[in-house]
């Protein structure tokens, strides 16, 4: 017994049993063991078997795992330095645990134990590392260091091997998947701890540290499949182009890169520190891996200026034909640059002899390589000569003029003249980035062209080389679009000149003019609409386009841009399409209304689960034309009303309605993208001619996907309006009947709220603004037939909307409260499920309603099992607690009971619990105090043992 222990009182068996009898609850154990300071209790508790059952890992049904805490273990760790013998003895018994939490505790205990007691834990800890239980435990490196400093070298080495030696993981799935590599520490901690590990290795085994490190790198290469033993080939020149730091190193192999850096630096340090160079190089070359060989070349290159021995060994490597291969080139060239300028004449001659004999391929391989690279019309012999010369050019370029003997400087110049300058020749492959497409002429230059020159340039320019980064028609079109947006008046007036240009440039013209209109720039429409009409009749059968992305191979993109321009021209603006010319816009759009795009095949491929009908309608021609056409009619009527001349719009409106009609009957267009365009225009059609629209409701709002898309798109794209809902109500009734039968409704615009919910949103908003009465038939039907989840979402969404709105008048708020009350009454009567009030927390949080109103309703709502306030209620509950302390405490209790598995929502409640509970206790209200007691018990048993102190502190403060 140490002197320090002697001052503690030995526990008597009765006290130990009394304590144990109170420690059934896990949280009581936490409270007790976290504050137990007496080390003499270790043996006393051990005799009672307290440490015999550390918790085990529990695998949940979903495959995840969790572990209960082990407060007894925490106490052992704290006692480790006081009574190391008993603690070590007890923990040795728990080493077989598979629970990561317990394993972590064993590591922490080993950190706290004196080295003699800690060393035996190295073996199990190394095993835990290999099994991945301590992947984030950077402390193992500190433990290894402490053990090494105390002379426990073997134990220290065990830990380092467990933490840093790579081993094969699982085969990664998918195309090109390679094997994963595992280490005891995960990537970040591996990289963070490796420099310290190297330092410890050097301290523990000064001569063998490099060997160990190289063996780790070798293990990485084998485990990752980068190197196959016996093949003398690896891919390191691709993922690690340079052994020295370089921007071409992408860092894609985090473990491998970290190990290369460590091995490289230690190799250089060993040589500069006086270690025999041949020994060091032998350590690298022993495993035969190209990567290790490259590191050896790098070490020799770096150390040769200062070390004669490195120069001698390095020169021997320069004479090895195999190392002139491209896989070694970066490091070989670097070594040559360092040594050749210092070499004697004899040495240069010797090197020249090897170089001149290259490329070092046997006849068969040389013929194969030359054949593979043979140019059109070239003989095999000529190709061999060229192959050899290019090989020499690459190696000489890589070494560079500064490192070459004079006669090779001349040869390099001559080879460059024949084959061009080799950029980045020291790398077998070189990565660079590019952003395109590229225009052959800058936007600034294009701006300076007169119209005639511009048209001529667009007509005559042809792309040169087919590389992706080379100038393309698409690149030129983008520059043109920007220029058109800035010179819109001039170029729209000259639209006729574009008539014979390719579709890529015509599209750019229309798109640039759309941009100009959006920016308030002037557009001249007369000739433009003539061009539009001529573009509309260009042939395009709608079939799928494949091939070059550098130009438009069909006309539909230009036609769609034209429709979009006309749509833009119908918006109120100084430069929109003048009223008299709207009929010309109809002329231009008419051919497109029956365009082949989208074909059924296109819609099957890109629609469905891929793109919703509304999105597809924006990217296909026929719907784009329909959208623009309906807007033209609406604009015509608008202008006629402004000018109080109804006749002015008659021709345009009647032609538009006839064209729409033609898509509905006698044969209906089956396209859902077209339906979405009609849905987006539905409100305008009602406004343009309600009678005409109502006569065609059975065609427009049919009981199928087509009708669903029109109806749901109309609801999703228009603000609530009584007229719109009146016209839509037959469809809405039908939809409610269908969903009541469990059928689905197809959404035209897929977003977080489905068609049935959006219908509810419209109804609620109309009720709030008193546009429909409280007993409106459709509203009543909605709350009778819509699914429970939709009703709950509609009510919740309304609360959310009100919370986001400023200055909501009293009337709508009153009607919202009245309506909600009718639902609460139904819940109370059992006529509807309480889950209908699941979103009521938004109402409470909206700050638009008095707490006296929402608190009792919230108390009813929270009783529903699925009620989840998602962290939204804590603050408002605390703010309202003084008004109704018992009610708020009871709400808190229910939320905590039902929200056990909602960590975020629970956090919010626990943050505000001390304030709520302090108010409840201070209120003196018996119900409030009883509810607060229950909440305290709940929280304490859930591990929030500090809540008692927090509530006390709050009560004192307030």
């Amino acid at each position, binding site marked *: 017994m140490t002197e320090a222990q*002697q*001052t*503690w*009182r030995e*526990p008597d068996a*009765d*006290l130990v*049993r*009394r*304590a*144990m*009898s*109170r*420690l*059934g*609850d*896990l*949280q*009581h154990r936490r*409270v*007790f063991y976290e*504050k*137990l*300071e*007496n080390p003499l*209790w270790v043996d006393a*508790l051990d005799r*009672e*078997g*307290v440490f*015999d*059952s550390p918790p*085990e890992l529990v695998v949940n049904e979903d495959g995840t795992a969790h572990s209960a805490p082990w407060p007894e273990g925490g106490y052992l760790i704290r006692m480790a330095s006081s009574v190391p013998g008993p603690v070590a003895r007890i923990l040795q018994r728990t080493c077989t645990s598979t629970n990561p939490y317990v394993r972590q505790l064993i590591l922490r205990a080993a950190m706290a134990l004196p080295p003699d007691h800690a060393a035996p834990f190295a073996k199990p800890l190394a095993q835990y590392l290999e099994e991945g239980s301590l992947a984030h435990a950077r402390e193992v490196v500190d433990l290894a260091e402490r053990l090494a400093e105390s002379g426990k070298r073997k134990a220290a080495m065990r830990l380092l091997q467990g933490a840093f030696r790579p081993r094969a993981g699982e085969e990664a799935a998918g195309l090109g998947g390679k094997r994963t590599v595992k280490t005891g520490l995960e990537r970040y901690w591996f990289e963070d701890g490796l420099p310290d590990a190297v330092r410890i290795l050097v301290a523990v085994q000064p001569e063998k540290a490099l060997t160990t490190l190289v063996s780790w790198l070798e293990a990485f290469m084998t485990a990752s499949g980068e190197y196959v033993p016996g093949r003398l080939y690896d891919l390191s020149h691709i993922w690690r182009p340079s052994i020295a730091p370089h921007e071409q190193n992408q860092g894609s192999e985090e473990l491998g890169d970290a190990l290369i850096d460590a091995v490289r630096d230690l190799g250089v340090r060993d040589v500069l520190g006086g270690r025999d160079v041949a020994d060091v190089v032998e350590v690298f070359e022993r495993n035969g891996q190209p990567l290790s060989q490259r590191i050896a070349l790098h070490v020799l290159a770096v150390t040769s200026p200062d070390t004669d021995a490195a120069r001698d060994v390095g020169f021997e490597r320069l004479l090895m034909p195999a190392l002139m291969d491209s896989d070694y080139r970066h490091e070989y060239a670097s070594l040559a640059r360092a040594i050749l300028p210092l070499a004697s004449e004899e040495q240069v001659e010797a090197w020249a002899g090897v170089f001149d004999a290259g490329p070092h391929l046997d006849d068969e391989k040389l013929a194969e390589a030359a054949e593979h690279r043979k140019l059109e019309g070239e003989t095999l012999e000529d190709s061999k000569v060229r192959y050899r010369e290019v090989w020499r050019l690459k190696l000489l370029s890589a070494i560079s003029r500064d490192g070459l003997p004079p006669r090779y400087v001349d040869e390099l110049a001559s080879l460059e003249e024949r084959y061009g300058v080799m950029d980045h020749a020291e790398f077998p492959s070189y990565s660079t980035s590019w952003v395109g497409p590229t225009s052959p002429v800058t936007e600034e230059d294009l701006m300076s062209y007169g119209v005639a020159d511009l048209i001529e340039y667009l007509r005559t320019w042809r792309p040169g080389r087919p590389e992706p980064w080379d100038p393309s028609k698409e690149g030129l079109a983008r520059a043109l679009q920007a220029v058109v947006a800035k010179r819109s008046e001039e170029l729209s007036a000259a639209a006729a000149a574009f008539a014979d240009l390719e579709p890529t440039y015509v599209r750019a013209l229309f798109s640039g003019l759309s941009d100009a209109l959006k920016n308030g720039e002037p557009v001249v429409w007369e000739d433009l609409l003539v061009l539009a009409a001529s573009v509309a009749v260009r042939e395009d059968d709608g079939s799928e386009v494949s091939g070059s992305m550098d130009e438009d191979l069909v006309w539909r993109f230009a036609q769609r841009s034209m429709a979009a321009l006309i749509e833009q021209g119908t918006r109120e603006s100084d430069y929109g399409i003048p009223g008299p010319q709207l009929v010309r816009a109809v002329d231009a759009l008419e051919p497109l209304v029956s365009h082949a795009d989208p074909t059924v095949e296109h819609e099957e491929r890109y629609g469905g689960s891929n793109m919703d009908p509304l999105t597809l309608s924006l990217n296909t021609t026929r719907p784009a034309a329909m959208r623009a056409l309906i807007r033209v009619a609406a604009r015509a009527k608008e202008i006629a009303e402004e000018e109080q001349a109804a006749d002015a719009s008659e021709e345009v409106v009647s032609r538009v309605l006839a064209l729409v009609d033609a898509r509905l009957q006698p044969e209906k267009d089956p396209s859902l993208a077209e339906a979405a365009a009609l849905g987006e225009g539905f409100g305008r059609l009602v406004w343009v001619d309600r009678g005409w629209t109502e006569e065609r409701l059975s065609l427009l709002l049919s009981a199928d996907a087509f009708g669903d898309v029109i109806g749901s798109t109309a609801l999703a794209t228009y603000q609530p309006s009584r007229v719109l809902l009146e016209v839509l109500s037959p469809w809405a009734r039908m939809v409610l009947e269908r969903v009541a039968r469990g059928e689905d409704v197809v959404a035209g615009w897929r977003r977080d709220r489905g068609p049935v919910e959006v219908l509810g949103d419209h109804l609620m908003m109309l009720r709030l603004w008193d546009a429909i009465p409280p007993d409106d038939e459709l509203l009543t039907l909605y709350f009778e037939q819509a699914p429970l989840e939709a009703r709950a979402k509609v009510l919740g969404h309304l609360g959310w909307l009100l919370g986001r709105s400023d200055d909501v008048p009293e009337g709508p708020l009153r009607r919202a409260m009245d309506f909600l009350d009718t639902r609460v009454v139904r819940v109370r009567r059992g006529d509807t499920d309480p889950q209908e009030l699941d979103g009521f927390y938004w109402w409470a949080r909206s700050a638009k309603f008095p707490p006296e109103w929402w608190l009792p309703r919230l108390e009813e709502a929270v009783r529903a099992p699925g009620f989840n306030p998602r962290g939204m209620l804590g603050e408002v509950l605390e703010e309202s607690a003084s008004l109704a302390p018992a009610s708020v405490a009871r709400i808190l209790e229910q939320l905590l009971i039902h929200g056990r598995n909602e960590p975020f929502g629970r956090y919010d409640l626990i943050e505000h619990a001390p304030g709520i509970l302090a108010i409840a206790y201070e209120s003196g209200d018996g119900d409030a105090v009883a509810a607060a*007691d229950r909440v*305290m*018990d709940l*929280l*304490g*048993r859930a591990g929030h*043992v500090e809540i*008692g102190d927090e509530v006390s502190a709050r009560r004192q403060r307030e």
Partner: protein
Amino acid sequence: MNARRRHSALVLGRVETREDATVNLFRDSLRDIERVRHPGRGREVDMDDLRTRFPRALQVVEGVLQSRLTNFFETVDDLSDLLDAANEREDGAVDI
């Protein structure tokens, strides 16, 4: 449900199949009480031993039940008293 599971549910508040020192203490105490409640015909009763063990057993059972049934923080207060005793030094000082 076997006796161990029943006892663990009562003592720990959850069903636990593994050994637990507090559950074992409770089970042993209950057994001691049961032995007195149902004395075996052929079993001798050592009254001195009984006078010592019975109150201890009762105390354990009482402690376990109180911890489960009373408010969490009442037991925390009790534990605080026990910790004062456990952390006492020979000279009577208590580490805070």
